[in-house]
């Protein structure tokens, strides 16, 4: 089996999570979601990817409100959110935790409602991040029935595992554990309660074809927009290197 970078495995999971979406928008500082989206675009060329991080040739012509207007119109199928804290009810906190101040909520309180579905993504998998209850709700994972809400959480992806969101139960289900971790490791490093099958599957590793795409055309487009990330993962001039 070919060796792969952990970021490559996460990008492959992201590509599967995007699924049959038509339009995915990706915020600044999200190189792994961007990598996953561009990988998927090789299978689904019609996939529209709006990279908010682009410094030139930004996809919008109406200024920074256009992303939110697009979401309000129902034209954004998938969005990504992270959090200084994420809790078991899929609430996210981007404001303050343990006396520390974080940048702020950005558009999360709106996009979490308006995008067709939101993939929660945070590499750090620790009890500090994945908490029982966030200290501040930047954006809630659930809304009462009278509140109109187009979308909400679909999954939570970390460096250790993939959780699927169970909308009816309002709880996460551990869907798979990445190679190098284990169900017990995940349990020990997760501060909230979640469901899990008796046997937790392993997250599929990238196929040779996926790795070929990632290190070829995908690395190239990512290097244009996230040069530091591309250098870190694929080396100088984004030439791929096995870990």
């Amino acid at each position, binding site marked *: 089996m070919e060796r792969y970078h952990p970021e490559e495995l996460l990008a492959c999971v992201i590509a599967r999570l995007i699924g049959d979406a038509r339009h995915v928008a990706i915020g600044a500082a999200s190189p792994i979601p961007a990598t996953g989206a561009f990988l998927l675009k090789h299978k689904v060329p019609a996939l529209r990817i709006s990279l908010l991080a682009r410094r030139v040739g930004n996809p919008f012509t109406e200024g*920074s*409100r256009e992303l939110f207007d697009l979401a*309000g119109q129902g034209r954004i199928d998938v969005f990504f959110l992270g959090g200084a804290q994420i809790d078991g009810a899929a609430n996210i906190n*981007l404001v303050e935790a343990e006396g520390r101040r974080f940048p*702020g*909520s950005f558009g999360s*309180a*709106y996009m979490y409602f308006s995008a067709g579905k939101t993939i929660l993504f945070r590499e750090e998998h620790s009890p500090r991040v994945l908490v029982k209850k966030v200290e*501040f709700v930047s954006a809630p994972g659930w809304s009462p029935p009278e509140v*109109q809400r187009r979308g909400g959480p679909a999954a939570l992806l970390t460096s250790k595992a993939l959780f699927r969101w169970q909308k009816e139960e309002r709880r996460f289900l551990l869907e798979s554990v990445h190679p190098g971790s284990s169900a017990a490791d995940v349990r020990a490093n997760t501060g909230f309660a979640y469901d899990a099958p008796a046997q937790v599957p392993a997250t599929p590793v990238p196929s040779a074809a996926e790795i070929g795409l990632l290190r070829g055309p995908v690395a190239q487009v990512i290097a244009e927009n996230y040069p530091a990330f591309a250098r870190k993962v694929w080396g100088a001039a984004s030439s791929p290197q096995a870990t």
Partner: protein
Amino acid sequence: MSALASNTTRFLADADALAREIADGASIGLPPDYSLVAMDVVRALVRRKAKDLKLIGVPQLGLCADLLIGAGCVREIETSAVTLGEAGLAPRFTAAAETKSLRIIDATCPMVHSGLQATEKGVPFMPMRGVLGSDLVGRHPDWKTIDNPFAEGDPLLLAKAIVPDVALFHARWADEAGNVWVGRRKELATIAHASKACYVTYEELYKGDMLEDELLAPGCISSVYVSAVAPAPRGAWPLGVPLVYGIDDAHLLRYAQMAKSDAGFRQYLQEFVWNATTPKSSSPASSRA
């Protein structure tokens, strides 16, 4: 007579002259780091020891807010976030927040846009979907929940109109009529429309009237909104101007490093703000403008 004193654009000498127009205590609508920040005026505000400013992030803020906060010019900030992007957390904002020496009104991007668009249209509020259930709602002094008058049991959030005293930003061009060109950065137009006064630095003077040019007009903000302009070549540095110069990522990293301590921040001010003659290094436009 209109109360908005923006009928005829005044041409001022430089960023320091513009900074003198912005009174202590003013609320200032400001763009994010990726959207034509008038950094030369920000530095001039620090030099003129501006006080008690209220910064409004449209919808978020970066270097300019961190500098002004660190220099003690800011009383209050309303924004969706303060970040240096790839250079990480904004250190002076973070320190001021953690020591509770700054009033912070946390917002979320579309509520800021809608609050300004309400003022743009002369209405007292705009309704929004989403956001309900966020802890932002209870803490924000100007948001209100109502039932949709067109439907039963459909709660909506209202963004109260935001009226900045001042809009402040940088433009690729100003022309001889006082129009400014900002291209696709339309959040700057919204700030200009909603503010009582609008100050703009420009990279280069464009001879003539850009509104007469069908290709340039769509990226213009009409002089009807612009109180005064001043030349500031490379005035957005270390941030960028598309097609002219890119963000100086190395400088931002250096700032982020120095500003981690108060002493380091003072040294940064000494080197790059008080000593205004420091040459502005910058990356070439072609790389990542």
